[in-house]
Protein backbone atom coordinates (compact mmCIF):
# COMPACT_ATOMS: atom_id res chain seq x y z
CA UNK A 1 0.00 0.00 0.00
CA UNK A 2 2.90 2.37 0.62
CA UNK A 3 4.22 4.17 -2.43
CA UNK A 4 7.15 2.36 -3.97
CA UNK A 5 10.44 4.21 -3.98
CA UNK A 6 10.61 4.03 -7.79
CA UNK A 7 7.29 5.82 -8.02
CA UNK A 8 8.40 8.51 -5.59
CA UNK A 9 11.56 9.09 -7.57
CA UNK A 10 9.59 9.48 -10.76
CA UNK A 11 7.56 12.23 -9.11
CA UNK A 12 10.48 14.26 -7.89
CA UNK A 13 12.85 16.06 -10.25
CA UNK A 14 16.36 14.78 -9.74
CA UNK A 15 18.41 17.15 -7.64
CA UNK A 16 21.83 16.75 -6.11
CA UNK A 17 21.61 15.17 -2.65
CA UNK A 18 23.13 17.34 0.07
CA UNK A 19 25.31 14.97 2.16
CA UNK A 20 25.03 17.27 5.19
CA UNK A 21 21.23 17.28 5.20
CA UNK A 22 19.72 15.43 8.14
CA UNK A 23 15.98 15.30 7.70
CA UNK A 24 13.60 15.79 10.58
CA UNK A 25 11.15 12.92 10.43
CA UNK A 26 8.15 12.42 12.66
CA UNK A 27 6.83 8.90 13.16
CA UNK A 28 3.36 8.63 14.63
CA UNK A 29 3.45 5.16 16.17
CA UNK A 30 0.60 3.09 17.51
CA UNK A 31 1.14 1.96 21.09
CA UNK A 32 0.14 -1.62 20.32
CA UNK A 33 2.47 -2.34 17.44
CA UNK A 34 4.96 0.11 15.99
CA UNK A 35 5.83 1.71 19.31
CA UNK A 36 6.40 -1.68 20.93
CA UNK A 37 8.40 -2.79 17.89
CA UNK A 38 10.57 0.31 18.36
CA UNK A 39 11.10 -0.68 21.98
CA UNK A 40 12.09 -4.15 20.89
CA UNK A 41 14.53 -2.69 18.39
CA UNK A 42 16.09 -0.85 21.32
CA UNK A 43 16.27 -3.92 23.55
CA UNK A 44 17.88 -5.95 20.79
CA UNK A 45 20.25 -3.07 20.17
CA UNK A 46 19.29 -2.79 16.54
CA UNK A 47 20.14 0.63 15.20
CA UNK A 48 17.72 2.84 13.33
CA UNK A 49 18.16 6.40 12.05
CA UNK A 50 18.42 8.73 15.03
CA UNK A 51 16.65 11.57 13.26
CA UNK A 52 13.27 9.82 13.53
CA UNK A 53 11.17 11.45 16.27
CA UNK A 54 8.70 8.90 17.56
CA UNK A 55 5.35 10.10 18.86
CA UNK A 56 3.36 7.48 20.73
CA UNK A 57 -0.34 7.28 19.98
CA UNK A 58 -3.01 5.11 21.57
CA UNK A 59 -3.88 3.95 18.05
CA UNK A 60 -2.86 4.98 14.53
CA UNK A 61 -6.53 6.01 14.17
CA UNK A 62 -5.71 8.96 16.42
CA UNK A 63 -4.07 10.81 13.52
CA UNK A 64 -6.14 13.24 11.56
CA UNK A 65 -5.32 15.60 8.72
CA UNK A 66 -4.72 18.50 11.06
CA UNK A 67 -2.20 16.57 13.14
CA UNK A 68 -0.29 15.51 10.04
CA UNK A 69 -0.21 19.04 8.67
CA UNK A 70 0.85 20.42 12.05
CA UNK A 71 3.96 18.24 11.95
CA UNK A 72 4.96 19.92 8.70
CA UNK A 73 4.08 23.34 10.15
CA UNK A 74 6.46 22.61 13.03
CA UNK A 75 9.28 21.86 10.64
CA UNK A 76 9.13 18.17 9.75
CA UNK A 77 10.69 17.18 6.40
CA UNK A 78 8.84 13.88 6.40
CA UNK A 79 6.09 12.25 8.37
CA UNK A 80 4.88 8.71 8.65
CA UNK A 81 2.21 6.82 10.48
CA UNK A 82 2.87 3.28 11.68
CA UNK A 83 -0.09 1.18 12.66
CA UNK A 84 -0.98 -2.44 13.20
CA UNK A 85 -1.29 -4.90 10.36
CA UNK A 86 -4.62 -4.62 8.59
CA UNK A 87 -7.19 -6.71 10.41
CA UNK A 88 -5.25 -6.59 13.70
CA UNK A 89 -6.13 -3.15 15.08
CA UNK A 90 -6.60 -3.18 18.85
CA UNK A 91 -9.63 -0.95 18.27
CA UNK A 92 -10.89 -3.00 15.33
CA UNK A 93 -10.51 -0.44 12.53
CA UNK A 94 -8.38 2.50 13.67
CA UNK A 95 -5.62 1.66 11.20
CA UNK A 96 -8.08 1.72 8.30
CA UNK A 97 -9.14 5.21 9.31
CA UNK A 98 -5.49 6.22 9.47
CA UNK A 99 -4.92 4.76 6.01
CA UNK A 100 -7.72 6.87 4.49
CA UNK A 101 -6.61 10.01 6.29
CA UNK A 102 -3.03 9.59 5.13
CA UNK A 103 -4.22 9.06 1.57
CA UNK A 104 -6.33 12.21 1.78
CA UNK A 105 -3.58 14.25 3.44
CA UNK A 106 -1.17 13.20 0.67
CA UNK A 107 -3.47 14.87 -1.86
CA UNK A 108 -3.70 17.98 0.27
CA UNK A 109 0.10 18.10 0.61
CA UNK A 110 0.35 17.94 -3.18
CA UNK A 111 -2.09 20.85 -3.41
CA UNK A 112 -0.18 22.88 -0.86
CA UNK A 113 3.10 22.28 -2.66
CA UNK A 114 4.84 20.16 -0.04
CA UNK A 115 4.35 16.90 -1.91
CA UNK A 116 2.38 13.87 -0.80
CA UNK A 117 5.45 11.63 -1.04
CA UNK A 118 6.74 13.19 2.21
CA UNK A 119 3.96 11.41 4.06
CA UNK A 120 3.59 7.64 4.32
CA UNK A 121 1.72 4.90 6.16
CA UNK A 122 3.27 1.59 7.27
CA UNK A 123 1.72 -1.44 8.93
CA UNK A 124 3.54 -3.99 11.06
CA UNK A 125 3.11 -5.84 14.34
CA UNK A 126 4.79 -5.41 17.76
CA UNK A 127 7.21 -8.28 17.13
CA UNK A 128 8.49 -6.94 13.81
CA UNK A 129 11.30 -4.74 15.10
CA UNK A 130 13.16 -5.42 11.84
CA UNK A 131 10.26 -3.79 9.95
CA UNK A 132 10.37 -0.85 12.32
CA UNK A 133 14.01 -0.34 11.43
CA UNK A 134 13.54 -1.04 7.73
CA UNK A 135 10.67 1.43 7.38
CA UNK A 136 12.53 4.10 9.32
CA UNK A 137 15.41 3.64 6.88
CA UNK A 138 13.12 3.77 3.84
CA UNK A 139 11.66 7.06 5.01
CA UNK A 140 15.05 8.48 5.97
CA UNK A 141 16.50 7.63 2.57
CA UNK A 142 13.50 8.93 0.73
CA UNK A 143 13.51 12.28 2.51
CA UNK A 144 17.26 12.65 2.13
CA UNK A 145 16.76 12.27 -1.62
CA UNK A 146 13.86 14.71 -1.67
CA UNK A 147 15.78 17.26 0.37
CA UNK A 148 14.39 19.62 3.01
CA UNK A 149 10.65 20.37 2.96
CA UNK A 150 9.78 23.50 0.93
CA UNK A 151 8.61 25.08 4.20
CA UNK A 152 12.06 24.68 5.72
CA UNK A 153 13.77 25.79 2.51
CA UNK A 154 11.75 29.04 2.60
CA UNK A 155 12.44 29.52 6.31
CA UNK A 156 16.21 29.11 5.75
CA UNK A 157 16.15 31.63 2.90
CA UNK A 158 14.36 34.29 4.91
CA UNK A 159 16.93 34.06 7.72
Amino acid at each position, binding site marked *: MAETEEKVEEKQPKQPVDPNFVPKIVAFCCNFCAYAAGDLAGSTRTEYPSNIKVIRLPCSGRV*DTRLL*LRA*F*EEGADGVYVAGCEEGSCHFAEGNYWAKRRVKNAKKLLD*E*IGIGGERLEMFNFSASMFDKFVANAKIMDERIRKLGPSP*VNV*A*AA*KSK
Partner: protein
Amino acid sequence: MIVAETKPIEEIYGFIEPYNKIMVLGCGGCVSVCLSGGEKEVGVLTSALKLKRKIDGRELEVVEMTIPRQCDWEYFDLMGSRLDEVEAVVSIGCGAGVQALVKKFPDSLVYPGLNTSFLGVGEKPGVWVEYCQGCGSCVLGLTGGICPVARCSKHILNGPCGGSEKGMCEVDPKNIPCVWQLIYDRLKSIDRLDLIEKIMDMKDWSTATDGGVRRMENPEVFALEHKQQEDKEPAKG
Protein backbone atom coordinates in the same frame (compact mmCIF):
# COMPACT_ATOMS: atom_id res chain seq x y z
CA MET B 1 -29.10 19.53 4.61
CA ILE B 2 -27.03 21.97 2.57
CA VAL B 3 -24.05 20.16 1.11
CA ALA B 4 -20.88 22.03 0.22
CA GLU B 5 -17.37 21.13 -0.86
CA THR B 6 -14.04 22.77 -0.03
CA LYS B 7 -12.72 25.06 -2.71
CA PRO B 8 -9.26 24.27 -4.10
CA ILE B 9 -6.63 25.59 -1.67
CA GLU B 10 -5.06 27.51 -4.53
CA GLU B 11 -8.25 29.55 -5.05
CA ILE B 12 -8.65 30.45 -1.36
CA TYR B 13 -4.94 31.20 -1.18
CA GLY B 14 -5.42 33.69 -4.01
CA PHE B 15 -8.24 35.48 -2.15
CA ILE B 16 -6.13 36.09 0.97
CA GLU B 17 -2.89 37.00 -0.84
CA PRO B 18 -2.89 40.67 0.32
CA TYR B 19 -3.49 39.96 4.01
CA ASN B 20 -1.25 38.95 6.90
CA LYS B 21 -3.87 38.21 9.50
CA ILE B 22 -7.14 36.52 8.70
CA MET B 23 -9.96 34.67 10.36
CA VAL B 24 -11.16 31.25 9.21
CA LEU B 25 -14.77 31.04 10.31
CA GLY B 26 -16.58 27.71 10.42
CA CYS B 27 -20.27 26.99 10.76
CA GLY B 28 -21.75 24.44 13.12
CA GLY B 29 -24.76 23.78 10.89
CA CYS B 30 -25.17 21.70 7.74
CA VAL B 31 -21.59 22.09 6.53
CA SER B 32 -20.28 20.66 9.81
CA VAL B 33 -22.43 17.59 9.28
CA CYS B 34 -21.18 17.11 5.72
CA LEU B 35 -17.60 17.53 6.97
CA SER B 36 -16.68 20.55 4.92
CA GLY B 37 -17.14 23.61 7.10
CA GLY B 38 -16.97 22.64 10.78
CA GLU B 39 -14.42 23.15 13.50
CA LYS B 40 -12.13 20.41 12.25
CA GLU B 41 -12.16 21.72 8.71
CA VAL B 42 -11.32 25.19 10.03
CA GLY B 43 -8.18 23.62 11.52
CA VAL B 44 -7.19 21.81 8.35
CA LEU B 45 -7.73 24.86 6.13
CA THR B 46 -5.79 27.03 8.59
CA SER B 47 -2.84 24.63 8.54
CA ALA B 48 -2.93 24.35 4.77
CA LEU B 49 -2.95 28.11 4.23
CA LYS B 50 -0.20 28.66 6.79
CA LEU B 51 2.00 26.00 5.19
CA LYS B 52 1.51 27.43 1.73
CA ARG B 53 2.39 30.88 3.01
CA LYS B 54 5.50 29.54 4.70
CA ILE B 55 6.64 28.02 1.41
CA ASP B 56 6.25 31.47 -0.11
CA GLY B 57 8.38 32.90 2.71
CA ARG B 58 5.61 34.85 4.41
CA GLU B 59 3.89 34.29 7.72
CA LEU B 60 0.14 34.15 8.05
CA GLU B 61 -1.66 34.68 11.30
CA VAL B 62 -5.01 32.98 11.58
CA VAL B 63 -7.80 33.36 14.09
CA GLU B 64 -9.76 30.10 14.10
CA MET B 65 -13.39 30.24 15.07
CA THR B 66 -16.59 28.29 14.57
CA ILE B 67 -20.06 29.58 15.44
CA PRO B 68 -23.21 27.45 15.65
CA ARG B 69 -24.73 28.96 12.50
CA GLN B 70 -23.74 31.65 10.05
CA CYS B 71 -27.23 32.20 8.68
CA ASP B 72 -28.78 33.70 11.82
CA TRP B 73 -27.84 37.08 13.23
CA GLU B 74 -27.65 36.23 16.93
CA TYR B 75 -24.76 33.80 16.57
CA PHE B 76 -22.45 36.48 15.20
CA ASP B 77 -22.46 38.04 18.66
CA LEU B 78 -20.39 35.06 19.82
CA MET B 79 -17.52 36.38 17.74
CA GLY B 80 -17.13 39.31 20.14
CA SER B 81 -14.50 41.71 18.85
CA ARG B 82 -12.28 39.05 17.25
CA LEU B 83 -13.29 40.32 13.84
CA ASP B 84 -11.57 43.65 14.56
CA GLU B 85 -8.22 41.88 14.87
CA VAL B 86 -8.15 40.56 11.32
CA GLU B 87 -7.88 42.02 7.83
CA ALA B 88 -10.18 39.51 6.16
CA VAL B 89 -12.38 36.51 6.84
CA VAL B 90 -12.55 33.20 4.99
CA SER B 91 -15.98 31.78 5.75
CA ILE B 92 -16.48 28.07 5.33
CA GLY B 93 -20.20 28.35 5.81
CA CYS B 94 -22.52 27.83 2.84
CA GLY B 95 -23.22 30.63 0.38
CA ALA B 96 -25.99 31.92 2.63
CA GLY B 97 -23.60 32.09 5.59
CA VAL B 98 -20.99 34.03 3.63
CA GLN B 99 -23.59 36.57 2.57
CA ALA B 100 -25.14 36.90 6.02
CA LEU B 101 -21.66 37.68 7.32
CA VAL B 102 -21.20 40.36 4.66
CA LYS B 103 -24.58 41.86 5.49
CA LYS B 104 -23.91 41.85 9.22
CA PHE B 105 -20.39 43.29 8.94
CA PRO B 106 -20.39 45.51 5.86
CA ASP B 107 -16.92 46.87 6.67
CA SER B 108 -15.30 43.42 6.71
CA LEU B 109 -13.74 41.63 3.78
CA VAL B 110 -15.29 38.19 3.49
CA TYR B 111 -14.23 35.40 1.12
CA PRO B 112 -15.83 32.01 0.53
CA GLY B 113 -13.93 28.84 1.32
CA LEU B 114 -16.57 26.42 0.05
CA ASN B 115 -18.47 25.68 -3.12
CA THR B 116 -22.06 25.27 -2.00
CA SER B 117 -23.53 22.43 -4.02
CA PHE B 118 -26.98 21.07 -3.20
CA LEU B 119 -29.71 20.07 -0.76
CA GLY B 120 -29.06 16.49 0.04
CA VAL B 121 -28.96 13.50 2.28
CA GLY B 122 -25.99 11.58 3.60
CA GLU B 123 -26.82 8.24 2.00
CA LYS B 124 -23.94 6.46 3.72
CA PRO B 125 -20.90 7.61 5.66
CA GLY B 126 -18.98 10.04 3.50
CA VAL B 127 -21.47 10.12 0.62
CA TRP B 128 -23.99 12.91 0.18
CA VAL B 129 -26.51 12.90 -2.64
CA GLU B 130 -28.79 15.61 -4.03
CA TYR B 131 -32.42 14.97 -3.08
CA CYS B 132 -34.13 18.35 -3.38
CA GLN B 133 -33.84 21.33 -5.67
CA GLY B 134 -36.06 23.72 -3.76
CA CYS B 135 -38.35 24.16 -6.77
CA GLY B 136 -41.08 25.67 -4.62
CA SER B 137 -43.92 23.35 -5.65
CA CYS B 138 -43.32 19.87 -4.37
CA VAL B 139 -44.31 16.93 -6.58
CA LEU B 140 -43.36 14.19 -4.12
CA GLY B 141 -47.03 13.40 -3.48
CA LEU B 142 -47.35 12.23 -7.08
CA THR B 143 -44.11 10.31 -7.32
CA GLY B 144 -44.07 8.09 -4.28
CA GLY B 145 -41.88 10.45 -2.28
CA ILE B 146 -38.94 10.35 -4.72
CA CYS B 147 -38.13 13.56 -6.56
CA PRO B 148 -37.71 13.62 -10.36
CA VAL B 149 -37.03 17.37 -10.40
CA ALA B 150 -33.86 17.02 -8.37
CA ARG B 151 -32.87 13.45 -9.07
CA CYS B 152 -33.51 13.01 -12.80
CA SER B 153 -30.56 14.37 -14.79
CA LYS B 154 -33.03 15.91 -17.25
CA HIS B 155 -35.68 16.82 -14.65
CA ILE B 156 -38.20 14.79 -16.66
CA LEU B 157 -41.65 14.68 -15.10
CA ASN B 158 -42.89 11.89 -17.37
CA GLY B 159 -40.02 9.46 -17.32
CA PRO B 160 -38.08 7.35 -17.69
CA CYS B 161 -36.30 8.46 -20.84
CA GLY B 162 -34.49 6.06 -23.16
CA GLY B 163 -31.26 6.51 -21.22
CA SER B 164 -32.40 4.36 -18.31
CA GLU B 165 -30.62 1.04 -18.26
CA LYS B 166 -30.51 -1.59 -15.54
CA GLY B 167 -31.79 0.98 -13.07
CA MET B 168 -29.03 3.49 -13.76
CA CYS B 169 -28.91 6.84 -15.58
CA GLU B 170 -26.80 7.08 -18.73
CA VAL B 171 -25.38 10.43 -17.58
CA ASP B 172 -23.34 8.58 -14.94
CA PRO B 173 -24.24 4.88 -14.90
CA LYS B 174 -21.92 4.17 -12.00
CA ASN B 175 -23.30 6.72 -9.57
CA ILE B 176 -26.71 8.03 -10.62
CA PRO B 177 -29.66 5.70 -10.22
CA CYS B 178 -32.48 6.29 -12.72
CA VAL B 179 -34.93 8.08 -10.48
CA TRP B 180 -37.82 7.01 -12.69
CA GLN B 181 -36.89 3.39 -12.11
CA LEU B 182 -36.94 4.14 -8.37
CA ILE B 183 -40.29 5.91 -8.68
CA TYR B 184 -41.73 3.07 -10.75
CA ASP B 185 -40.55 0.41 -8.28
CA ARG B 186 -41.82 2.40 -5.32
CA LEU B 187 -45.25 3.10 -6.81
CA LYS B 188 -45.54 -0.52 -7.86
CA SER B 189 -44.76 -1.65 -4.34
CA ILE B 190 -47.44 0.60 -2.84
CA ASP B 191 -49.86 -0.24 -5.65
CA ARG B 192 -50.12 3.33 -6.92
CA LEU B 193 -48.84 3.02 -10.49
CA ASP B 194 -51.99 4.86 -11.49
CA LEU B 195 -50.24 8.06 -10.37
CA ILE B 196 -47.78 7.92 -13.27
CA GLU B 197 -50.10 6.56 -15.92
CA LYS B 198 -51.49 10.07 -16.21
CA ILE B 199 -49.44 12.75 -17.93
CA MET B 200 -47.86 15.13 -15.47
CA ASP B 201 -48.41 18.64 -16.79
CA MET B 202 -45.75 21.22 -17.41
CA LYS B 203 -44.40 22.53 -14.18
CA ASP B 204 -44.99 26.03 -12.90
CA TRP B 205 -41.40 27.13 -12.50
CA SER B 206 -42.34 30.56 -11.17
CA THR B 207 -42.00 29.16 -7.67
CA ALA B 208 -38.44 28.07 -8.45
CA THR B 209 -35.46 30.38 -9.04
CA ASP B 210 -36.98 31.14 -12.45
CA GLY B 211 -39.63 33.30 -10.78
CA GLY B 212 -37.11 35.75 -9.43
CA VAL B 213 -35.53 35.97 -6.00
CA ARG B 214 -37.71 34.17 -3.49
CA ARG B 215 -38.73 35.09 0.01
CA MET B 216 -40.99 33.57 2.62
CA GLU B 217 -42.92 35.46 5.22
CA ASN B 218 -44.43 34.18 8.39
CA PRO B 219 -47.26 36.64 8.96
CA GLU B 220 -47.27 36.21 12.72
CA VAL B 221 -43.61 36.91 13.27
CA PHE B 222 -43.38 39.39 10.44
CA ALA B 223 -46.36 41.30 11.90
CA LEU B 224 -44.65 41.31 15.28
CA GLU B 225 -41.65 43.04 13.80
CA HIS B 226 -43.90 45.72 12.37
CA LYS B 227 -45.63 45.99 15.69
CA GLN B 228 -42.34 46.74 17.43
CA GLN B 229 -41.59 49.43 14.92
CA GLU B 230 -45.06 50.80 15.44
CA ASP B 231 -44.46 50.74 19.19
CA LYS B 232 -41.49 53.04 18.76
CA GLU B 233 -43.47 55.48 16.72
CA PRO B 234 -45.16 58.24 18.77
CA ALA B 235 -48.80 57.47 19.46
CA LYS B 236 -51.14 59.26 17.17
CA GLY B 237 -53.96 61.55 18.25
